[in-house]
């Protein structure tokens, strides 16, 4: 998951390196570091914003470690899902247990259906639905869509997936 953290450092040499070291110790992959040296907090410390990717279970011990080192952790924002995707389904979506179709994704733990739009023009006609899926990463999004693919085959639904190429 992606974590964005506001921390505060003492105005002394070597503080930034000391604060970043534990992040890499906890297998964090740094995305960005913004060091506001010109801004001072009322406490006389320097605010720094760091963004990194790591596994969820690393976050809490990392915070403890930082605090033990005298680094103030002011705000932590965890963003679990980094990848977003859309698919469209056609067929008897509701009568083939829509809840079960959604559960296929939600049960994975790495992806969730976050939005569903359903269009049912008349009782005997095929319904159409768009699913927005959030996943923790690219691979997980692909895995979630391929799970949905097997469900679609089983329930005789047409699954319209996004194209592979990423030219733009």
């Amino acid at each position, binding site marked *: 998951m992606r974590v964005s953290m506001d921390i505060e450092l003492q105005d002394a040499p070597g503080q930034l390196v000391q604060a970043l070291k534990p992040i890499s110790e906890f297998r964090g992959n740094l995305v960005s570091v913004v060091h506001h040296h010109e801004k001072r907090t009322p406490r006389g410390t320097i605010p720094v914003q760091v963004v990194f990717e790591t596994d969820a279970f690393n976050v809490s011990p990392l915070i403890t470690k930082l605090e033990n080192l005298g680094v103030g952790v002011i705000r932590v924002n965890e963003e679990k899902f980094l990848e977003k995707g859309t698919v469209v389904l056609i067929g008897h979506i509701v009568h083939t247990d829509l809840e079960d179709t959604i559960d296929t994704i939600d049960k994975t733990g790495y992806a969730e259906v976050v939005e569903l739009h359903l269009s049912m023009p008349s009782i005997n006609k*095929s319904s159409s639905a768009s699913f927005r899926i959030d996943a923790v990463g690219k691979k997980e999004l692909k895995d979630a869509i391929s799970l949905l693919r097997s469900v679609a085959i089983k329930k005789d639904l*047409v699954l319209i*997936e996004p*194209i*592979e*190429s990423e*030219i733009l």
Partner: protein
Amino acid sequence: MKTIKASIIGFGSVGQGVAKVLLRKKEELRSMGLDIKVVAVADSKTSVIDMNGLDLAHVLERKASEGNVGDANITGHDIIRDVDHDVVIETTPTNINTGGVGLQNMLMAFNKKRHVVTSNKGPLALKYKDLSALASKSGCAFRFEATAGGAMPLLNLVRDTLSGNDVISIEGIFNGTCNYILTRMMEEHATYELMLGEAQELGIAEKDPTYDVEGIDSACKLVILANAVFGMDVAYEDVHVTGISRITPEALMLAETNGYVVKLIGEVNRQRIQVAPRLVPIGHPLAVGGTLNVASLQTDLAGPVIVVGRGAGSIETASAILSDIISIYKD
């Protein structure tokens, strides 16, 4: 000046297009040092032969007025076997189940050491390996640009212009009929049946549209690309195919709300060959409308290369056939 004796076997829309193009480009071909002399033309019932070269304008007129090309009762297959010539232009209709007369014609041509230039997908989708092995054993050229993308250059693009590149994948729209129907469904918020009807009225879709709308045509083209570009050994059965007949206007609108159009996309790489309706981001190079075809090639050196063009049509297909004939004699 090099004189090339050719036959046109199959004189429907494509065969006639070839005759028209050869007439129109006679001078340009001569300036390249090529004198292409058509010594025989066969349609499904009749044929005409003249070893001094046929008057193609006359053959086209007769086909238009009487519905046949001549009085000779000799089949295309017999012409390939018995008439002395260099290149067989094979433009009989595609038969995806048996390969049809096209397959027999091509086999005979190679046995008689004649080059083959074709627009006929059936034999290639079924027997590519056998045909290309026989062609190289006989020392014959086997060219089929028209089968993969119509007028859109793909095979020659990869072989000549992109040579040295490794093609990683090809994906695109390989059927203009499907693209037309999907484009119009989206524009008019209309049903598949309604827009199929419109396409049929305009002559864009056949009376029996199965071959196009169920993705069979696109699948044949992917098989040809898989074999010819990726060196795979696959046939039609190896393609996962989903057509467009179950697409609803509501699905297209939901896609649009999310920033996508729906296109029948063919995709080939070393792992999979698939034809299916897919979501293409609006504004993406693959999101072309109308009857256009498009192909995006991912290459290791040049990165993505995209070609857009007409996938069908009499003169357009003949353009690919002409470029194939020229390429044989330029080599």
